[in-house]
Structure formats: C-alpha cells, structure tokens
C-alpha cells in the first residue's frame, strides 16, 4: 500500500504540472499535437527516472559525507546535464531507433525544471533509493498524463478555433484550459 500511495500520490495528487506547477513550459510548448506530446512524455519518464537515481547516488555518496549538501542544486544541474548528454551520445550509437523516436526532446529536457524538481523533492522527503525511483516514475507519469490530456483538449479546440473570441485565441485559451485542468486535479487532494 505504501508503494501504491507513493506512486499515485506523485502522479495524481501532487501532479508535477497541475499541483506543483513545475515544467509548465514544455506543458504549453509541446502539447499542440498528440504525437509530439506522447514523445515528450516518454522522454520525460526516461530522463527523470535516470536523473533521479543518479542524483540520489551523488547526494548520498558525495555531498552528504562531505557535509556540503547546500550545494545540492548546483551538483544536480551538473549531474542531470551530463547524464542526458551521455545518454544521448550512447543511444545514438547503440539504439538509433529509440534515439529517433525520442528525437529533439532529449536535449530539450536537460534544462527542464521538472527533472531538477523531482531530484530535489526526493532528497527533501528523505526517500530511500527504491522509494525515490518509484516517486520519480510516478511524477513523470503524472507529467505525461497531464500532457496527453491537455494535447487532446487542444486538438479539439484547434478544430473549433472559429468559435473562440479573437482575444482568447491561441495561448490565452490554453492558459485558461490549463487552469481549469489544475482545478479538476485538485479533486484528487486528500484521497490518500
């Protein structure tokens, strides 16, 4: 039950986009088409899982023994950037098919604040290694869920663009929709 709560708590109750408001930039940027939203979601799950396990190792292996945990944010940025770069290079050589399907999203995610946010949250909550992995996958799945729901809504809205008042077309309506989605996700509050 603990793992269940951890996973779905991170995915639905504390949704990274709609409850914590991290990673809003890619949420608005790549949600205009369902295909790109799916690609981005998968890439985020992949990178967050990898980056959070690496940052956990760096935090408890290097920073804490030396008593310099105040440097965690800086060290995490370094680790995430390096890991994503490394994975991109290796993947291009060994799994070209996977590299092509994730495409441009991999380097984009390097500077995504959701990735850094998960790493910091893992440490702040005092999670163990496996706990932080489950929490990371849950959070990333929540990001993908929000992204795909939003992309579906935006595709519908693009078809009905003629009926939208001119001042609200495009980004304004997207922001209103995102706000309403965040309200809807508040309904998950308190179920665990």
């Amino acid at each position: 039950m603990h793992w269940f709560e951890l996973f779905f708590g991170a995915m639905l109750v504390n949704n990274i986009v709609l409850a914590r408001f991290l990673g809003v930039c890619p949420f608005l940027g790549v949600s205009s088409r369902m295909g790109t939203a799916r690609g981005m979601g998968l890439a985020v799950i992949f990178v967050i899982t990898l980056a959070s396990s690496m940052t956990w190792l760096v935090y408890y292996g290097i920073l804490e023994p030396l008593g310099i945990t105040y440097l965690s944010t800086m060290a995490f940025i370094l680790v995430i950037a390096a890991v994503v770069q490394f994975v991109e290079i290796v993947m291009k050589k060994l799994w070209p098919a996977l590299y092509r399907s994730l495409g441009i999203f991999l380097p984009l995610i390097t500077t995504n604040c959701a990735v850094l946010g998960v790493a910091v949250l893992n440490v702040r909550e005092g999670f163990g290694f496996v706990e932080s992995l489950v929490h990371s996958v849950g959070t990333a799945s929540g990001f993908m869920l929000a992204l795909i729901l939003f992309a579906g809504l935006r595709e519908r809205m693009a078809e009905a663009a003629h009926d939208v008042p001119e001042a609200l077309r495009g980004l304004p309506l997207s922001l209103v929709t995102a706000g309403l989605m965040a309200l809807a996700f508040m309904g998950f509050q308190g179920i665990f």
Partner: protein
Amino acid sequence: MESLLYPMIALGGLGLAFGLLLSFASRKFAVPVDPKVAAVRALLPGANCGACGFEGCDIYAENVAAGKAETNRCPVGGGELAAALAAVMGTEAEVQEKKVASVRCRTSCERGIEAYIYQGIRDCRKATVLPGGGPNACSYSCLGFGTCIPACAFGALSVQDGVIVVDRHLCVGCGKCVEACPRGVLEMIPVSQPVRLACNNADKGVQVREVCPEGCIGCGLCAKVCEAKAIEMRNNLPVIDGSLCVGCGKCVEKCPVKAIVVTPAGEEKTGAGGE
C-alpha cells in the same frame, strides 16, 4: 579551510569526471555521418513541409544521401533543386514540372443554393458528416470553412466570398491542402496548364442544374471542340491533360456554364482575360 576545500574538490571533481566521460563517449560512440547528408541538406529549402513524403528536410536529406529516395521529390525546390541534388549525388536528374493547387469550385454561398442553414462548428470535416454532406445543396462543392488553410505552411490559401482561393505566387505545390480537403475539391495541376476545370460536380446535367447555376453539366462540348484531344469526359466531368493542351481557349468559349477557366499561364498564351 575545509569548508572551502571540500566543495571545490567535490564539484570540481564531478565536473572533471563528467567532462572526461563525455569526451571519451563522444570519441568511443561517434556515429560516422555521410558528408553527402550535410551537402544535400544545405541545398534543401528547409520548410519541413513534408511534401516529399518524409518527416522533414533532414530525414529526406538522409534518404537521398543513402540513395533510398529520388532527387526530384521536393516540390518546393522544383526542377532546379532536383538537378542540384542530382549533381551532388552524381546521378541524372529526373525533372518534374512544378505544380500548383487548383480549386474545382467557384460558386460562393451567396450565388449557390444552400440546402439548410448551418450553425455548427465552422470546420469542413465536421460539416461533411451531416446529411447531404454539408449545408451546400451541391454535395461536391467547396464549403468555404477553410479547413485546408491551416494545412498550407506557405499561406497560399484564403477564403473569398465563401470559396477557397489559391495564391499561385505563394503555392509551392506540396499538395497538403489536397489531403486536408474532405470533399476532394482541390487538385494539383501543372503550373503551365493554360485552362482548368472549376467544378467538381460529377452528377448528370439536370441534377447539377438544380443545385448550382455555374456547375458543369457534363455536356461534353469542350471535349468535342478540343483539337489537341486534351480533354476527355470521365464521370460527367472533363479531364484536362495539361501536357496536350495548347491553350487555344476554344473550350472556355464553348462551355455553356463557363466551368472551364483560363489560368494565369493560359492568359499569356491566348491573350484572353483569365482569372
């Protein structure tokens, strides 16, 4: 001193380790790139319109360089580009004539007959699922809601008086709009074709008369007067072969409903007033 030393060693060490790892990886896992890919990509227009059938210019360049795709698939660059690409690849260019989109309808909502008043979503794809295929009495006509407009990456389409109009200067001939139109009103014609058909109604004359004053009634006069044998009647509509048409303009004169119109290319040939 320790409070200064440890952070420096830890972060500096991390940075150094990652730097070495990355430089090692970029050597070890380097993917050889064909220099032809870059050469081909540099020649392509970079519009990423997808008209070649690939996802974008980068992917098309890779396929051309690998010899998997023909050099003449980019309609934006046209024959010139095909020749340049063929020079890079060391093959003969198969030149392809540039095409433009043509609208097979010209009857606006004001002049045409409406079967009923439509107040739904202003989208052709939504309207075509309704009885009769939309509010227009003619079930072959352009609905004029402009579903094809966002499909055009070059801004060549616009709605004028309820009918789609193609700007021939902006159209690059990618054919995306043809795919987007649920009614099949748009077609691609060679840019040099002197005349074009401006009606899409494949019904018999009487039925066409009931729904549109300007629709092709399928009389076949155009095919009869054409001396170059460029017009053939198929499905109650004339099919114009652009490679045979000499631009004499007889079909335009004879057509009782003026459903065949002169294109800008034809204007030069015949000197007649066109669109």
